[in-house]
């Protein structure tokens, strides 16, 4: 008797229709005239928040989901548990920072905030592509109560078509599009934010100049 693999493949070779290559005619969607307005609308439709901040003072300018700021310099309340991919944030009084790489998952359930570095955002749907630095970061992004993802000035693409041109799937063992907080509507279709993962999600766009950068698109 043949093994399952061979018999499944043999069955498929018998039953499949003849191959007929077809034309692909789909055109690449263009970047909208006002990508920031579209991106903001999509992020908000997904229950998230969008913010454009100047790079030089982003820590102070970000509208943090918790009462993090204790002073004008944006330093953090030491009682909070924070995972941050940005050393400048972790070093500013955060209770926990990127240094806690070997903490067991259970400790992460006390995490108040996770701040990640995103690679780019997709204007058409409001998602941000993110590749976790390691298992710890991936868990932190799911177990923290609040999530902030930061992207840089030129990191916008019009649609998923352009997004996948930038992504090298063969080079990563894990990567994800994140769009808004974890959510469910499984009880009577009532939307509830914070199903299993974060209850809030902010997409922060860091620019050299607060109003520039909109034209820098790929």
């Amino acid at each position, binding site marked *: 008797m043949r*093994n*399952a693999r061979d*018999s*499944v493949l043999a*069955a*498929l*070779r018998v*039953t*499949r*229709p003849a*191959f*007929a*290559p*077809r034309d692909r*005619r*789909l*055109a690449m969607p263009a970047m909208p005239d006002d990508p920031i307005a579209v991106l903001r609308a*999509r992020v908000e*439709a*997904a229950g998230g928040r969008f913010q454009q901040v100047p790079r030089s003072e982003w820590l102070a300018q970000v509208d943090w989901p918790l009462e993090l700021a204790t002073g004008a310099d944006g330093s953090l309340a030491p009682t909070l548990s924070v995972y941050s991919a940005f050393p400048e944030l972790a070093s500013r009084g955060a209770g926990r920072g990127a240094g806690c*790489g*070997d903490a067991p*998952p259970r400790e992460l359930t006390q995490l108040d905030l996770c701040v990640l570095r995103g690679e780019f955002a997709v204007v*058409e*749907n409001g*998602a941000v592509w993110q*590749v976790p*630095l*390691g*298992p710890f970061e*991936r*868990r932190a992004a*799911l*177990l923290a109560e609040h999530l902030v993802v930061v992207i840089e000035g030129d990191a916008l693409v019009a649609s*998923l*078509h352009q997004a*996948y*041109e930038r992504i090298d*799937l*063969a080079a*990563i*063992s*894990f*990567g*994800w*599009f994140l*769009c808004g907080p*974890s*959510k*469910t*509507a*499984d*009880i*009577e*279709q009532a939307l*509830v934010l*914070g*199903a*299993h*993962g974060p209850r809030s999600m902010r997409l922060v766009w860091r620019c050299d100049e607060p109003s520039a950068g909109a034209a820098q698109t790929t």
Partner: protein
Amino acid sequence: MGHVSRARSFVADRERTTWHDQALWFVRAKRDAAADLVPDWEALRDEASTIKHEALERLPELWIEFESQATRAGAVVHWARDAREHNTIIARLLAERRITRVVKSKSMLTEECGLNAHLEAEGIEIIDTVLGERIVQLRNEPPSHIVMPAIHLRRAEVGETFARTMGSPPGLDDPDALTAIARQDLRARFLAAQAGITGVNFAVAETGSLVVVSNEGNVDLGTALPRLHIACVGLEKIVPAKRDLAVFLRLLARSATGQAISAYTSHFRGPRRDGSAPPTPATAASPAAELHIVIVDNGRSRLLAEPAFREALACIRCGACLNTCPVYRRSGGHSYAAVIPGPIGSVLEPARDAATHAELPHACTLCGSCSEVCPVKIPLHRQLLAWRGLLAEAGHSPHHRTRRRLALALAAEILARPRLYRLFDGPGRRLARALPGAWIEWLAGAWTRQRALPAIPARSFRAQWREISRERRARPASPAPAEATATAKDTRR
């Protein structure tokens, strides 16, 4: 007990039926609004259909390519001819690792294979983690929708279920509070789980990657925490290349819920290492994570051989055809008594078991709405019609009841012979007028209940026509042109 009688018990609760109908129509409207925001929506559907057609024609090559890529990335690939083999492989993987606590994210394939019952019989705790599926699991019910598993339930029923099974305060029916209770309970189970089982939305041949989408983050917790990830994938889920993902992901969430994209769209390639970072002392210290992929046939290669139905293998399980179906919205998912309800289920289920599901292609008005919303352009209503013919030939049709067959045979004989027809016309007409209204249901089935026959006139069309012709002949021979037009209008009226 058939679809009709199961639907009857659902519609008996008028308030629930109305809510169910409107809630699903609301999702359909959200789908329309989301599609309207995509200027190339129809081109996208064409592209998706094209990609799926090509993939179905190249299944063996694509799966071999996938297997080689996934294996190179460190995953272990298993093949299962049927549900039994699928369940056996998973039970063995768990037993070899002495695993007894498993979390599962929604997968219609594992529902199809009856995995939960199989593992529970082996003493393994398997917890469904999508809120809706957890609710129906706690109630010992199957999901009633492929995307919204508990859409048949009202909030008070969820509250009762949680009070009974998780000790929440009786009478609680606030969705926020109920979700918080489930979140707390499931968070502990995620942390305790030794393995996570997931379905797969797309398997990418080019890279050996798996793509799984979720809104709640349950897929991600179930794969980020435990050491073992088992992904179950049906043969139809393969796409040739990375670039194809863009086409399907632009369609999937918009068609399913009206979202532009789900909250999480996760790409797995090989076991958990994460990113391109080299292993740290921390990750190296813990035992290596494992990814096992189970590729399942379970009737799919057989369906591929059916030209009339093979396109159903293009389905991406968005549920849009359920949300738009006038029969599904009013009869509820459980009335189908099938793993996959609604139009796509009524095409797929008879292929698995014709005798059991022969009635499902008839739970359809042939309105064609399902085909219009399908993101991969499966001609669902045509397939449902085709099934009716095939199932009738195989003797499975509900219209094979003796009285119906005799009545149709008699009608065919009479209608084919004008003399015979004239002979039966008068007595038949008198009989039909004299019989009580219920006779038509006795003869033609339950669908006649909401469809009264028009009153049968006392005189036949022929008799009426003769009379009109006589009257015409009796009129003045050549009326003026204006009058002629007026007469024609009158006659039409």
